[in-house]
């Protein structure tokens, strides 16, 4: 009988990294409630760093797994591991960037709650990356978003923070509702919420020259809209500039990476793994979105005088580049970059590599902004004037991040775009590849303008002294990663290629 109870004990060890982050969140919660406020800064920062690093180490245990537990709700495969690495490293960097900011700026925000919410947001994103079921994708996204909404409003005495968070929240829950509605349609058509079961069901029913079921098309459309909101793709980006601008800068750094990574994780899980048989339909949809997003983000970023807003639009543009990678998905269960061009899918690997690259350079850019805020500088372009004379190292770091975001050769940002372009060409999307190149050239204008302002303008006013050791270490680490991970990109892209283990079912059914 179908509704029989079959109780099996879940394999908890398989989800060890996720459980470590969960334990960290609970420990932080108790630490926040029971440790004296004066010790919060040192203890909870240390606890967070140790926790995330422990989870990173524990990921090694998942590295070569391809297994499910919790009745198929949790998947440990290549995709889980790669995305978890990105999310956890973003978490470590966010802790380093935010510690002194939360403690000292904007009227001393409660640091304990900050870390608790950060940990829950990270856990939610990791659960999306490891989801094997539509329900899990949804619940994970909700956990991650809910914590992020609160983080965005964390400077609650500053009206822009509250206002940006309100917009983020309203549009975010709207997107969640649309996403859930889309999932309901997909469930209605396929009779299952399990991603592999959906793929199996669709592979059996879709194909040939048959007219696609309108219900399925509607579900696909609603899912695209919902995920588009979450990843801030044009035309679903309205909340982005205000939310990014209003949130405390370290939160902006976090928001621009982890929720985006979670949204792309959900997209890969749902579109590639479950709706793989519908590839032809959603690839068209995503390539149009990609073009719009790239063009809009880059062009509007030019007119921004506020660096945080500029980076917000730049992050929209980067969503576009990532979408190009996804639009280049080919439904062959091939072997990725390792086996040479023309043989298998490169799109998802290039997307994963792009998110990793984006993680380091974008959090880096926001980290330098935070660093300057500590020294009494504002957020406009003029505040960066003459940085090279007053703070040569900070200026150099910012220059590295800007040039990397632009995509200049030895740096990680170049390789990210390189792989995306390769994937697009391989998937016969030459026009998208050309668009990436052209719009990268457009983006050079505003990235290099910031560099020029730092190096050629005169400094204004006296900088304030500030001691931000953890932040300094973080920025140094990100500069090194931006340079080194580009030069040694081959092993990383090989690791990214392992995402295909997620396709145990969808890969077979798509088979050519």
């Amino acid at each position: 009988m179908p509704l029989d109870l079959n109780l099996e004990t879940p394999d908890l060890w398989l989800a060890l990294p996720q459980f470590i982050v969960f334990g960290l969140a609970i420990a932080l919660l108790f630490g926040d409630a029971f440790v004296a406020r004066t010790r919060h800064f040192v203890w909870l920062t240390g606890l967070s760093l140790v926790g995330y690093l422990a989870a990173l180490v524990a990921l090694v245990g998942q590295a070569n797994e391809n297994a499910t537990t919790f009745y198929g709700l949790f998947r440990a495969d290549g995709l889980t591991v790669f995305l978890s690495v990105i999310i956890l490293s973003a978490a470590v960097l966010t802790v380093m960037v935010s510690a002194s900011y939360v403690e000292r700026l904007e009227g001393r925000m409660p640091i304990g709650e900050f870390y608790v919410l950060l940990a829950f947001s990270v856990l939610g994103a990791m659960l999306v990356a490891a989801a094997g079921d539509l329900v899990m994708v949804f619940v994970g996204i909700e956990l991650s978003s809910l914590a992020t909404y609160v983080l965005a409003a964390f400077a609650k005495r500053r009206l822009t923070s509250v206002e940006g968070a309100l917009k983020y929240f309203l549009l975010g829950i709207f997107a969640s509702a649309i996403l859930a509605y889309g999932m309901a349609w997909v469930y209605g058509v396929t009779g299952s919420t399990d991603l592999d079961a959906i793929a199996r069901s669709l592979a059996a029913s879709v194909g040939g020259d048959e007219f696609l079921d309108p219900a399925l098309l509607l579900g696909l459309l609603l899912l695209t809209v919902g995920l588009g909101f979450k990843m801030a793709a044009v035309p679903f980006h309205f909340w982005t500039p205000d939310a990014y601008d209003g949130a405390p800068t370290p939160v902006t750094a976090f928001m621009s990476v982890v929720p985006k990574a979670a949204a792309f994780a959900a997209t890969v899980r749902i579109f590639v793994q479950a709706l793989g048989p519908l590839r032809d339909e959603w690839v068209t949809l995503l390539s149009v979105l990609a073009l719009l997003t790239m063009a809009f983000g880059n062009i509007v970023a030019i007119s921004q005088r506020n660096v945080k807003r500029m980076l917000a639009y730049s992050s929209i543009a980067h969503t576009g580049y990532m979408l190009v990678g996804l639009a280049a998905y080919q439904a062959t269960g091939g072997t990725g970059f390792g086996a040479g061009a023309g043989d298998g899918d490169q799109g998802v690997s290039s997307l994963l590599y792009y998110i990793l690259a984006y993680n380091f350079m974008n959090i880096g850019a926001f980290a330098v902004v935070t660093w300057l805020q500590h020294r009494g500088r504002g957020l406009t372009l003029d505040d960066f004037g003459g940085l090279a004379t007053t703070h040569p190292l900070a200026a150099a770091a910012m220059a590295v991040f800007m040039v990397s975001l632009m995509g200049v050769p030895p740096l990680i940002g170049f390789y990210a775009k390189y792989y995306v372009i390769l994937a697009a060409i391989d998937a016969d999307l030459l026009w998208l590849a050309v668009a990436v190149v052209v719009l990268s050239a457009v983006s050079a204008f505003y990235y290099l303008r910031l560099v020029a302002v730092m190096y050629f303008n005169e400094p204004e006013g006296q900088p304030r002294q500030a001691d931000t050791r953890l932040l300094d270490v973080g920025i140094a680490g990100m500069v090194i990663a931006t340079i080194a991970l580009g030069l040694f990109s081959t092993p990383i892209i090989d690791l990214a290629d392992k995402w295909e283990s997620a396709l145990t079912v969808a890969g077979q059914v798509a088979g050519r």
Partner: protein
Amino acid sequence: MPVETQTLGENWLVVGLMLVSAFSMGMLLLTLNKIMAPSKPSAAKAAPYESGMPDIEPVRPSYSPRFYVVAMLFVIFDIEAIFIFPWAVIFDELGTYGFVEMVSFIGLLFVGYIYAWKKGALEWV
């Protein structure tokens, strides 16, 4: 299979009757009140503060945001309670397994309760 008991069975008829009678009872009392009670409204009676200084602009009673926090916590624990219903009806089949599940679920919410308590969200001014 007795599927028809799931649609408009007699049980729901009773519920419907109860709703109708409750509604009509309320309406009846309100109407009676309207008809029988003397009603002489005046501006001074309508003022929020009937003595002392006249208010310069419309006065709104000032509620503490604590009310909101309590309402929020109520919603959250309400939803928790909802999750316990389907567990309770099949508890005998789930056995120890289900017990552990529910203990961890409630345990997590209990952590939230301790946290709210410790943070002073349950204290009253």
